[in-house]
């Protein structure tokens, strides 16, 4: 466990991002880490809350990780058809990210899409 596990950071909410195209290769950024040259120090973020809204026309797996194609950082979440899905911080592993967080829907069986929004804790 790193010392940052004990550190209290600032909570920040990402934008509502629409996952409209399935597959890891079509992952999109759901929270962007600052790479601004004027930043003093290095920022990282920990995943704290996740909100999904399924408009996919069927249940689907949502993957959250890093990179495009996206590599999972936490186990995939099951998104129930036509339902909201919320995971709070006591249910989400506080994985620390030093690069943009990306996500994708596995199949989008009905041709629709899934909205996703995350809340992170900013460390650094």
């Amino acid at each position: 466990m790193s010392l940052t596990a004990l550190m209290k950071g600032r909570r920040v909410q990402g934008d509502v991002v629409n996952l409209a195209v399935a597959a890891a290769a079509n992952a999109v950024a759901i929270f962007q880490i600052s790479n601004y040259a004027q930043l003093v120090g290095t920022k990282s973020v920990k995943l704290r809350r996740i909100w999904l809204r399924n408009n996919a026309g069927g249940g689907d797996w949502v993957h959250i990780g890093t990179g495009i194609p996206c590599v999972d950082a936490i186990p995939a979440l099951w998104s129930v058809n036509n339902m909201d899905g919320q995971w709070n911080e006591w249910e989400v592993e506080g994985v620390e990210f030093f690069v943009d967080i990306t996500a994708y829907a596995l199949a989008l069986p009905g041709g629709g899409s899934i909205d996703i929004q995350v809340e992170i804790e900013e460390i650094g």
Partner: protein
Amino acid sequence: MAELYPHKSGLGLMEPIALINHNVCVIYGNTKHYGKVTYLEPLPPFQALNIGAIAAQTVSARTAAPNLDLYDNEFGQFRWYPLDNAQIKLFLPNVDGRYTLRRIQVPVEPNIVDRDPDLHMTEFFEWEDNHPSFEAINFSDYALNACRIVCLGYRFVIAPASKAEITAIESGTPCVFLVASGFVGLT
């Protein structure tokens, strides 16, 4: 004399740098302003400045904080923190950076309220109307709608010291010395 000194860092909330009838010497630039405190009052936490909206990954203009101005023969003791998610640099006055090292100027972030809850290390002093300026680094990939600075502290009024009193202080009469401007290091 009470145990009062700049940036006092023991546990506890803010204390005034001096009490009534204490001698002080406010160093502003190369000038020393000697005097005796005749009046002091607290300044509860208040929004001293809103730099305004800042686009993502942008440094704001250096923005003066005239709301912190004081009258003649007065000085202020301030601690502060930003409300919004940016790194803030302090300049006192407008051109002299505070909290400076050779390579960087240390910014203050909202997390200062966790890391230094009594804000000891943010303390600065202002002489008369030589107010500070603040510059905000919005490092995030999202815009800020506002960039607000909260200040708290004390306002002091001093009676300027006579030549004899200054001589006595320089000979060892107790006096609180404090710096009210930045210092550019020597290369």
